[in-house]
């Protein structure tokens, strides 16, 4: 009996120590188990920066500016990409693949990295009257057609609140594409669909002109 007990203890010790060692190795970030174990800056450099810029300011309006974006929003989006639960065309073409093997720590680190980058300066409006109209829509919506204002979720300066993204300084075309995709259910978002369900192209042009210039 005593012999059995000692054997159990030995086996248990081996198992525990093995598990511990395995855990310790797994926790050592210096050991490159595979190449996805990059530090955050390298990850940004290798992958994100090619479209979004190293400082989170993208050149092409096809790709959103991420600098100063709300970290919770970035985390949520990356998780949605990883789950393939956000399925607008560019999400599928680009982010499903890029995000597929990010772990939670990396997602959190990337969100932190981009949210801490200095915000992009808004581009001066080409049409002041249009931007002014957009400001009205942003703040008050279009009551006669039951369109609510954006300000409640995205904040008075459009800098975003918690999970609601920053819109200020974003590419005008990117914003317009997103609104149209919410409207067309290409990008699934129940809240945004309700907000933009009745919006017109003119109103999209106005509000995005305003936001891009902020």
């Amino acid at each position, binding site marked *: 009996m005593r012999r059995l007990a000692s054997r159990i203890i030995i086996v248990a010790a081996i198992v525990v120590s093995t598990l511990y060692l395995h855990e310790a190795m797994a926790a050592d970030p210096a050991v490159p188990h595979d190449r996805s174990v990059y530090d955050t800056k390298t990850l940004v450099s*290798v992958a994100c920066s090619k479209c979004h810029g190293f400082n989170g300011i993208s050149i*092409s*309006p096809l790709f959103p500016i991420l600098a100063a974006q709300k970290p919770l929003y970035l985390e949520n989006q990356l998780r949605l990409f990883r789950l393939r639960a956000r399925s607008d065309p560019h999400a599928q073409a*680009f982010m499903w693949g890029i995000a*597929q093997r990010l772990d939670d720590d990396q997602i959190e680190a990337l969100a932190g990295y981009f949210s801490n980058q200095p915000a992009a300066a808004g581009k001066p409006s080409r049409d002041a009257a249009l931007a002014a109209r957009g400001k009205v829509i942003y703040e008050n919506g279009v009551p006669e057609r039951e369109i609510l204002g954006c300000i409640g979720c995205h904040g008075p300066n459009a800098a975003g609140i918690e999970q609601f993204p920053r819109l200020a300084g974003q590419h005008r075309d990117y914003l317009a594409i997103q609104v149209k995709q919410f409207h067309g259910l290409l990008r699934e978002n129940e809240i945004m669909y309700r907000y933009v369900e009745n919006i017109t192209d003119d109103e999209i042009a106005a509000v995005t002109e305003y936001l891009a210039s902020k």
Partner: protein
Amino acid sequence: MTDDHRMSCSWFPARRFLPLGWVASVAFGIATLMLVSPCALAIPPFARQTGLACEACHTAPPELTPFGRRFKLNGYTLTTRPPLVNDIDDYKRNSLWLTDLPGIAVLAQIGYDHYDRAPPDTGQPYPAHGQSDSFQFPDQFSLVYAGAVSDKVGAWLQLTYNGQSGGVGVDNIDIRYSDHSVDNKWVWGVTANNYVTFQDVWNGFGSYSLPNFNTVTLWSGGVGGSSLNGPLISSFGPGIVAGIGGYTFFNDSLYVELSAYHSSFNGGGTPVVDSSNLAAQGGALDGFAPYWRVAYEYDWGYNSAEIGTTGMFAKWIPSNGYISRQQTLAAAAAGGSFTPAQTFNPGAANQYTDIGVDWHYQYNGQHNIYSFLGHLIHENQHNSDQLTAATFTGLQGGPVYSNSTDTLTGFQATGEYFRDRRYGGLVSFNRTTGRSDVLANGGDGSPANQFEVFELDYLPWLNFRFLLQYNAYQVVANNQNPFTASNSRFPNSPGFPNVKASDNNTWVVGLWMDY
């Protein structure tokens, strides 16, 4: 002066070679030696490796987006695949990284061509002629490995069956090492490849310039191997040369590359170019030929613009640069000037200096994509004294160049448009002019050609492309034209009446797919 193979992702030159006379050999140069097969276009292994759709790297293949250029310059190494096998050394350096999914692709191109005038019969005298159409099924069939080999090394290794030659051979190869600063300000790398310009990332000049799909139309290889004159730099494809070079890409804008190429003959029995295979090779480089490339890219909004310069200095020994021992002895007996007995004659090298500018503007919008791109390249060809000397008479049937210096200027301007990467087309204007050289070019000596390519494309899927193309020729000079008496590829063709450049006009129906 050599013939243009701007689309020559080609290989197995020996298979196409026909023993020609000296003058004919020069006239055709390496043109008749190089098979012309369409380049591989988009590559699914890259998509599988990165998880990115084709549109990340291509507007419409093979044209690269700014992202695609960076992917290539970073050595094809971006990956989101997990490693199946991984190893590190005692210093925690990664020593092995094998993906769970090797980047293998199958590429196929199929083409049906209809010629405005049935080409001359290669074996029977005038007025015999061949059929007025041809069906290449496949025109090209390739297996490609493409992707990361390690975290800093990537490769493109292509093996191709060519429908015209019926042979399988090594096609395009590009192996590159790359690294970069953390902030991406500096990207640098080394490329080893077997096709001058295959390593390039802009599409204004070289192997990936547009138009890119071709079968056996005249401009892209020609009926029965006839081909158009073009600068030598366009002729250095697989099986002809191989080279290695270093490059850097600074601040996402300035690209500088310096490479050197050497003759590299596949399938010639011996890797050493000598009297036994020089003719089959179509010629050989004398030593290393430097190649340089400087380009500046500026991106804003949906736009990307590039302007650059490309150049090469090459000493090229044409196929008749070989002087046999017997010929040398005969020359000595006749009082000729070639005293040392030799089987290989570097002294017969022509010196080529090719310098060009290229441009590439691209608008890559959400729905609309269009590009304007092209190049202007000038070639100065200083012919070997031996090949122009009158003393050549009695040795090889006489001198093979009329001038001590020949020139060639090539111009291409292409506009391309795609809607949603599904419907599109292009128009391309191409013109080559140069100094008249009767001995080299036959007829009145002109090396000129001029033609347009019109193309309509339909891509039901991004890796499946139908196209309809029309090639219209205004100028096809002398031995470039299969219908003329001076075209040695068709020795029985003399006598065709009313030979016009437009005889070569061709309709092409094509299919390109890869998986």
